[in-house]
């Protein structure tokens, strides 16, 4: 998965720093250098490596944001994974 993320133009950090953004999707948690980029850009870049659903709501530091939201260092972006529904695909 790391190689897929690198190919998507996103660099990962080994640990959380003041310049990274924490990105969550389901069980996945990444520290990435994406400050200054929009939610839409991150969704596009991670869509394949993390299989992010196009319906997943973007939440930054606990609040729902628009796709054009500019990410800042130290923030946490979560794409909220859809609730389980008995084996049905998203």
């Amino acid at each position, binding site marked *: 998965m790391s190689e897929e993320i690198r190919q998507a133009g996103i660099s990962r950090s080994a640990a959380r720093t003041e310049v990274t953004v924490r990105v*969550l999707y*389901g*069980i*996945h*948690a990444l520290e990435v250098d994406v400050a200054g980029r929009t939610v839409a850009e991150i969704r596009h870049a991670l869509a394949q490596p993390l299989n992010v659903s196009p*319906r997943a*709501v973007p*939440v930054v530091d*606990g609040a*729902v944001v628009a796709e054009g939201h500019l990410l800042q260092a130290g923030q946490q972006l*979560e794409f*909220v*994974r*859809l*609730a*389980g*529904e*008995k*084996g*049905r*695909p998203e």
Partner: protein
Amino acid sequence: MLEIKVIGLGGIGCALLPPLARYLYYAGTGCRLTLVDGDAFEQRNLPRQAFRAAGNKARVKAEEVAQEFPGLSVRAIAEFVTPGNVADLIRSADVVFLGVDNHRTRKVVSDHCERLADALLISGGNEWTDGNVQVYCRQGGCDLSASLTRFHPEIALPGDGSPADASCDQAVAAGAPQLLFMNLAVASAMLNAFYAWQQGGIRYGEVYLDILAGRSQPVERRGSRE
């Protein structure tokens, strides 16, 4: 007396109930356990659900619990949850374990809990090898964590039907294959959330599980205090 409602006695509910009943029985704290499901056990349920007799799921499981743990107060309500009966089924200060497979029922229950002063709603669901548990906690009319619908539009605007009014096609779809181990993982996470709440605080509003990856990820879900 603590009122505990277990809604849905399918794969998750059947996995959750035995340890929950055992825990409550031996904890010795006063509580009443209410099992709610309008569905019936059939032979096709046997690969994932343990039951001693055919018949309504709530009644069959209530009888089993009463036999194994005499003295534990348990009752059955053989109904699906609907907007029409949810206020009778769930009262303020109840603890609700919700193990259903449709978003419409999740919305009915979550919306109702939003109107209560106090409630703990623990809802679990799964796909084949992954799943999630949501924990909605209200106290004194304030949300301590987010409702089931707040960050989940698929629950806020459900596209599926309630089992109470399921067509034949929907009933067939509801029989989509599931993995026993995933049901068990979700049930276990629901019980863990209940225990964390009992211990005085729960620090996450949702937890994701993936049994192939062998990982879980808790996520904070801040409530909107009123």
